[in-house]
């Protein structure tokens, strides 16, 4: 319990900064929505005149694009980007910081098992992410209802919003396994940024090109908002993929961390 509290305190400032950032971004984007909606109406009429296959080639349904949920889904992509960086950063640093900040000699000689250490740190990271998500969801919901042009399904809005948490979980697990496999990580941010942006760009290219295969590689595409909007549910195979990945990554992390030599300096 003491380690959990210690970790929470250690990440407090960073969690606050990330939460405020996410909130700031969504407020910014949603405040643009009203003017966007107006422009879109004009275009929708235009789109009607084009053949179905062409419209399909973009992998989106134009109606949803200009609706609250559709617009939200698009901007939500950037929220997920930042949230993923936060999560990956957390994951990559929680274990490696004991070596990086030379506190390994302190913590790992206390009467606690390495498993307990990992568990406390993971729980603290998880809690930080949960807090971020709760605050974000609250503000986003409020903002959405404030700028809406017409009624929308809150259920869909909610389902889209919590995919932030799902994506973050994946990057958290990814960060942990990466940190456990490295001997010493001197600076966490370059790794997180590079990895997350890499996956993000892969996801962007995939959606423009409409490639199904790439979807499996990049967590940003596990939760296709169009699918959610249409079917009010998630695609089962990706949920399974996510769970499997997280379980494997975390289990492997426990195993490796408990077995490996920790170099104090």
């Amino acid at each position, binding site marked *: 319990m003491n380690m959990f509290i210690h970790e929470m305190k250690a990440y407090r400032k960073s969690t606050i900064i990330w939460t405020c950032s996410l909130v700031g971004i969504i407020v910014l984007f949603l405040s643009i929505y009203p003017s966007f909606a107006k422009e879109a109406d004009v275009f929708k009429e235009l789109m009607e005149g084009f053949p179905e296959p062409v419209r399909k080639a973009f992998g989106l349904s134009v109606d949803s694009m200009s609706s609250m949920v559709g617009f939200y889904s698009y901007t939500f992509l950037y929220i997920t980007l930042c949230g993923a960086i936060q999560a990956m950063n957390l994951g990559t640093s929680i274990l490696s910081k004991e070596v990086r900040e030379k506190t390994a000699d302190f913590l790992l000689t206390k009467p606690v098992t390495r498993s307990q250490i990992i568990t406390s740190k993971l729980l603290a990271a998880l809690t930080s992410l949960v807090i971020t998500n709760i605050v974000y969801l609250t503000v986003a919901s409020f903002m959405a209802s404030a700028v809406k042009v017409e009624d929308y399904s809150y259920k869909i809005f909610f389902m889209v919003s919590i995919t932030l948490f799902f994506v973050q979980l994946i990057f958290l697990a990814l960060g942990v396994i990466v940190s456990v496999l490295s001997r*010493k990580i*001197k600076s966490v941010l370059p790794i997180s940024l590079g990895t997350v942006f890499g996956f993000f760009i892969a996801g962007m290219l995939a959606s423009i090109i409409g490639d199904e295969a790439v979807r499996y590689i990049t967590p940003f595409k596990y939760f296709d908002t169009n699918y959610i909007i249409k079917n009010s549910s998630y695609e089962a195979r990706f949920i399974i993929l996510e769970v499997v990945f997280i379980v494997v990554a975390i289990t492997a992390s426990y195993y490796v961390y408990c077995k490996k030599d920790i*170099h104090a*300096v």
Partner: protein
Amino acid sequence: MNVIEIKNLTKSYGKARGIIDVSFNVEEGEIFGFIGPNGAGKSTTIRTLLSLIYPTSGSATIFGKDCVEFGPEIKKEIGYLPSEVFYYDNMKVIDLLKYSASFYKKDCSKRIKELAEIMDLDLNKKIDDLSFGNKKKVGIVQGLLHEPKLIILDEPTSGLDPLMQQKFFDLLEQENKKGATILLSSHILGEVQRLCNRVAIIKEGKIIKVEKISTLQENNHKKFKIEVKSKIEDNYFNISGVSALEINDNIISFLFRGDINLIMKKISEIQIANLWIEEPDLEEIFMHYYEKED
């Protein structure tokens, strides 16, 4: 000639006290000790000399040139061993030493080999893989390989085994004989006692004394311990100059300062079984300074 001249050097970290009005000089060819309790300001003073941090007020010159303004120039002839040694990842010892040498525009390869042999340092090992003490050795070689005129050492022997400490002292004395000036900060009083000619004592950011080691010892009490054959009266040794008189059965011990003939007379007039006379440990002298409120 003074190699180092420090005048009223003050450094404050915001509101926190660093060093206040520190002044002392180090003469050419000296081995100068710099001692004080933890947090007294030894490292702060040294780092200011090396322009790692900048003084709030006051000045310091080395070789007659201001430490900040002429930093790069005077550092050509300075070798520094920090208290904690950190180097770059994935470098072998020899790589780091060569890198260090490349700053001095001298060919140091012979000297590197000599020093490594004396300190028993494996040049081909990766620094990451070395123990703390061995990393210290790298620091020592790194500080000396360019044969500098001024050697500054911050807690140099922490981490070294006694044999290595010995070799290190020998090395320092050799360099000193060749003309190098040495500034040594430590709180291992034994090594200060052994190596240094003069010493400055710093406490809570201020210099409380600058003195020759020999003077410090002279001006202090000698320790006497006498085993008497038969009991003598309690006040026998209670003369002026005696302090801390203790009588335990047949063992009388005290500290004496003054004309030694007086106390010798008193001893010669009684029957004794055994006699011990000791120079005070520098430890005891310094503890006095460490503790005393001036």
